[in-house]
Structure formats: C-alpha cells, structure tokens
C-alpha cells in the first residue's frame, strides 16, 4: 500500500478562512504579434499552440511586483473595511522582490500603513507559492499570533526572461495579488499537501544574481545569459506528471472528499498543453477546470489567485465553493489545498 504521504506532507487546519481576494495586473497588454520579428510567424504559432497564451500583461520598468501587490492590498482592505491595526502579519510570496535586501514585506508594511507591531517577511517560492502561502497565513492565524493576516503573492517574471529564448519569452505574464486570511468560527477545514524535491532545482532557475557564482557545470547553460530565467520544459513536464496527479488525489483522499463534490480545480497556469493533459489524466470535467493562461499567460505565483478573481469571481462572491488549489514547479516545490471559499465580500481584478 502506498504511503499516505507519498506525494507530500499532509496538514489539516481548521478555524481559518479566506475573506477576500484582489488581483492587480499591469495595463500594458502584449499580444503574440509582438514576438513575430524575433522568432518569425511560424515559430510563434508553434509555441502558442503548445502554451495557449494569446495575450499577457507586462509591468513597465518602473512598476514592480510590490507595486502591484500594494494596489491589490489597498483595494482589498478598503472593500473589507479592515482596521489596519488588526493585521498581525504580512506574508509576501514572490521571486521578484524589490531589492536583495531588505525583505520587500518590510517596505510594504510601511507603504500600506500597517502597524509596527505587524510581523512581516518574504517567502521565496513561485509556482507553488499560493497554496504554500495560504498554509503559512492560516497557520499564523491559528497559532494565536494574530487573528488577521495579509497574504501578498505575485511576480513579474517577464522581467527575468531573455527576449531571444523561445521557451520562456512568450510564456509569462505579470500580476500581484492580495488575500485576506482570518480566524473564523465556522466548521470547515483546509487540507494541505506540501512537498519539495530540490534535485530539480537546476531545471528552472536564474543562475546568477544571488551569492553563488555561476559555477554550475551544466552544458544546457552554455552560451546563455546567466541572469535570465532558464527552463527545461521536458524535465518540468516529467516532474509534473510524476507529482501533480498524485498530489491532487492525495489531498482529496486525506480530506475524505468526493472528487465529484469539488466545484472547481484551480491549477497553477503553467502551460495549456500540460494543463489539458493533467485534467484528462485526473478525469476533471472541463467546466470544473477553469484556465486563464490564454488571457494572462503564466503569472507564476499569482496564477491561482488570479483564477479566483477572474474566472471564479461571479460564483464565489455569492456562495461557498469547495476548491482544490494546486501549485507546482520551481524548486521543485509543490503544494495543494482543498478548502471551502466564499461567499466573499471582495473578489475582483484591478488594473494598475
């Protein structure tokens, strides 16, 4: 019999909930035509057929992930009428911080006017960052450290790609999100699966910019800009097939949830071909498997909250939905959550 934790650590948290979500996207829309001069129409069409991205939004040089998350947080706090003094922690999940130090969460605490009694820190995770961040935020709330937590999650990966790299140049879009997490008295629970396999670190990496010099002896990096994102697509696909179906089955099993009772499966928007293959493998019906990669591209850590505010806003604003969230990729790191969400007082997408 397979071990219960074969696809990751199982955690159940009861007594905390999501109270609102806002996503912020930059106003600069980039269509596929933009890439034709660099790659040619035929190559663009071939890549687009695989990744499924029609348009994406890119932040200008002056706009950072923190700016997007800040705007999302301002709208969220305004709509929920949260007293800032009640926010005990700010968790900022990103791989595109403003500076190498200090933690951008500190700057956001000040910019948002949060009290100095607020705990604030950054978490360096990408594709798995949203379910991971929810686990952290809910854990903090349930620890008694605070009753309200602001979870800010986003990335501007477009700034990290080489414009001449066919496998990454077209794929990514930018977005920043804010999620309100608080202690609640209701009887629901959130079931998490959390996992890591750093053996895959080299397959999705920006080699330079940290403090380990580029001594990576990897022939795949020869002749490349080591400050730009490197992705080995087939390795990532292999990883995804190995991990994601098992992770999703495990979170449902641990929650004792019937797959038919799941209202929607929100997967990290990695690449449309991969998503369709995973949905088919898991026998998830199309109407319960929303995708927005066609409109926004792969927005890294922001893709799951962006699905909440773009495609699910209409339903979760009105009623409770049982959702499966699944994040997987860079690290390798992966996390899934099965939890009820809604009705939400605030769920919307804003343009910065």
């Amino acid at each position, binding site marked *: 019999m397979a071990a219960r934790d074969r696809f990751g650590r199982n955690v159940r948290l009861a007594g905390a909930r999501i109270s609102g979500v806002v996503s912020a996207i930059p106003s600069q829309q980039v269509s596929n035509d933009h890439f034709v001069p660099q790659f040619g129409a035929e190559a663009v069409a071939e890549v687009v057929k*695989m990744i499924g991205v029609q348009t994406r939004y890119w932040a200008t040089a002056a706009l950072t992930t923190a700016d997007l998350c800040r705007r999302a947080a301002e709208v969220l706090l305004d709509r929920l009428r949260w007293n800032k003094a009640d926010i005990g922690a700010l968790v900022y999940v990103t791989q595109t911080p403003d500076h190498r130090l200090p933690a951008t969460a500190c700057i956001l605490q000040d910019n948002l006017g949060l009290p100095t009694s607020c705990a604030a820190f950054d978490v360096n995770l990408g594709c798995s960052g949203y379910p991971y961040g929810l686990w952290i935020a809910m854990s903090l709330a349930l620890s008694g450290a605070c009753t309200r937590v602001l979870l800010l999650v986003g990335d501007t990966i477009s700034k990290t790609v080489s414009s001449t790299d066919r496998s990454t140049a077209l794929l990514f879009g930018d977005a920043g999100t804010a999620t309100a997490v608080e202690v609640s008295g209701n009887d629901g629970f959130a079931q998490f699966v959390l996992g890591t396999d750093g053996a895959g670190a080299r397959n999705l990496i920006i080699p330079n910019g940290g403090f380990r010099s580029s001594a990576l002896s990897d022939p795949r990096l020869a002749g490349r800009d080591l400050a730009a994102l490197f992705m080995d*697509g*087939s390795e990532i*696909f292999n990883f995804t097939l190995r991990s994601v179906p098992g992770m999703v089955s495990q979170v449902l099993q641990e929650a004792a949830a019937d797959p038919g009772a799941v209202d929607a499966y929100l997967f990290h928007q990695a690449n449309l071909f*991969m998503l369709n293959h995973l949905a088919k493998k898991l026998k998830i019906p199309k109407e319960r498997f929303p995708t927005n990669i066609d409109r926004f591209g792969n927005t890294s850590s922001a893709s799951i909250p962006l699905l909440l505010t773009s495609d699910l806003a209409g339903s979760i604003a009105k009623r409770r939905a049982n959702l499966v969230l699944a994040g997987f990729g860079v690290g390798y790191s992966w996390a899934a959550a099965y939890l009820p969400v809604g009705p939400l007082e605030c769920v919307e997408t804003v343009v910065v």
Partner: protein
Amino acid sequence: MEAFYVGLAEILEIEASKVSSELNLTELAWDSLAVISTIALVDDQFSVMLDGKALAQCQRVADIEALIAKEKAR
C-alpha cells in the same frame, strides 16, 4: 501501435502512412515541443512516462518504441 503512429504523425506534421519504426526523426522537427507532446501521447496510449532527455536523443521511431517497451517492463 496504430493510434500511436497517428498521434506521432500529428506531432511531426507528416502523413500517418509515413510513420514506421524506421522513420528517421533527425530529419524532422524533433524539437523540445515535439518531445513534450510525445511524452503526453505515450502517457495517454500506454500509461507510461518517458524521460524527456532520453526521448530527445531518439533518432528513429524504433528508439521511442524501445523506450516504451523498457518502461512497460518496469
């Protein structure tokens, strides 16, 4: 193998009748996109997962078939 050849023909953008074990992949668009598509095709048809690196090194369709046979035997 029938459905597998049809799928492979779609990926390689050639007629299905042209696909055989002897087909030379190196003369076709056997690139990273084709490799990823083939991983999915093989997973669908045979419920086994091929390694992308090994797949990229295949020179003929027979090499892919050998990888599938090896995985099925595991």
